[in-house]
């Protein structure tokens, strides 16, 4: 029985990185429970040096084997890690059992509109956001953040929506009154500087009428919108889910 293989079996099964001290403790503990097993007892007091040497040898062997994982020492603790080039598959592996994802930006904006303007119809939401909200509404309804609260007394009597107690819980609010400055946020007119005009009126807090811009203006501003990057798709935004 070689020390390095004992260490390998430990590191391969361990759920976290292990320091040489922790490995040594396991060897000692195993020896204490070994009863008559002389082999197990013979590893009772392995020197730190011998441990480190065995681990180095092991790491070199795995490096040489050039498999999809390596044995590495990070901050004094040893662990097996997968090679970075397999990340696309490992992400897919982890992704399968991911918790409900964070709300997307469109979902948050839609939710904000509903929160401040409830009860509100789908058409009104779309007027504010400037885009269809079917998919987003579906998500919000499924996650129980919004619900149907009645019907608007207008032609067609469309459904109206409002937020749920789950919504308050999700954002750590005690009540709807805790939404910041509801009154002000509803009333404040927004007059945007020419240079920053955009195509989609997206702010939840602004009444639709104040966002209606002449069509020409909108088109122009869209084409000259500064830095047309998509931050949430850029690497480095950290927004990234999981």
């Amino acid at each position: 029985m070689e020390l390095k293989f004992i260490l390998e079996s430990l590191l391969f099964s361990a759920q976290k990185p292990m320091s040489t001290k922790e490995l040594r403790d396991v060897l000692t503990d195993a020896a204490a429970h070994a009863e008559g097993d002389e082999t197990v007892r013979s590893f009772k007091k392995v020197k730190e040096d011998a441990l480190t040497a065995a681990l180095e040898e092991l790491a070199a062997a795995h490096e040489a084997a050039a498999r999809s994982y390596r044995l590495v020492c990070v901050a004094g603790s040893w662990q097996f890690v997968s090679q970075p080039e397999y990340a696309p598959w490992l992400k897919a592996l982890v992704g399968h059992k991911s918790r409900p994802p964070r709300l997307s930006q469109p979902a948050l904006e839609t939710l904000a509109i509903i929160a401040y303007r409830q009860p509100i119809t789908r058409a009104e939401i779309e007027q504010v956001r400037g885009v269809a909200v079917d998919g987003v509404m579906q998500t919000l309804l499924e996650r129980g953040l919004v619900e149907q609260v009645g019907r608007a007394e207008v032609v067609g009597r469309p459904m109206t929506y409002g937020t749920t107690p789950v919504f308050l819980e999700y954002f750590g609010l005690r009540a709807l009154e805790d939404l910041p400055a509801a009154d002000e946020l509803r009333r404040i007119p927004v007059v945007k500087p020419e240079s920053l005009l955009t195509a989609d009126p997206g702010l939840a807090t602004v009444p639709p009428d104040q966002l209606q811009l002449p069509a020409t203006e909108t088109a122009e501003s869209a084409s000259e919108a500064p830095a047309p990057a998509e931050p949430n798709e850029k690497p480095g935004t950290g927004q990234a889910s999981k």
Partner: protein
Amino acid sequence: MSDYKVKFEVFEGPLDLLLYLIKKEEVDIYEVNLTQLATEFIRYIEVMRLLDLEIAGEFLVMASTLMYIKSRELLPLDQQVQTEGEDEGEDPRWELIRQLVEYKKFKDAAAQLQTLEARQENIFPRLPAKPEFEAEAPGKPEVSLFDLVNAVTAILKRVTQQPDSRDVFEDKWTVSEKIEVMIKAISERSRLKFSELFAGAMSRTEVVVTFLALLELIRLKQLVAMQNEPFSEIEICRAEPAAPAPAAPSAPEAAATV
């Protein structure tokens, strides 16, 4: 007495006891002398009776079968022929041997399962920690709209508590003016604390206008709001210019740590 009982129950039934007796004789099942076997089996049962032990029904059934076999053996040959003449297959001896052979095979199979069971006890599956992918940027998650909204609530409360906030009734600030102020501020210092944006605000309205300006700039991808950890102070900084090559994902450094 209970000791005897325990010992007796070591046999998993009459077939088990019979196999034990056969093994003791060191003969093949097919070649066993059934008459002798019956005698030994019945002797066991008699011992149990003498000791006044509870005897499982299966053993009694087997005892009577064996006695039947034994009695047939004792019959004169011509009478045996008469019985067997009907059909060889009904021979209870063959039926018993068939049962014993079959049982023996499963007993052996059970022993092999036991070996596997013991082996399996010493096998440990690799149970890695869930792979984690390093946050793509140095750990600066963007904050949600509602993180901002919550933050502004606190500021509004503070402004409301200022005694002179009502004096400044006439509010000159517009959202677009605030936007320009903010762009200027951020170009001078790359990073601003959320609270700094509102530090000079004299009224609720000014806070709200500032906030709307901030939201607008975030929406226009001019600024990003970030929070190093939940509930820490939100920071505002310039949005990074668009990455020229979005085809360079950060996969290489995203080694899964296990």
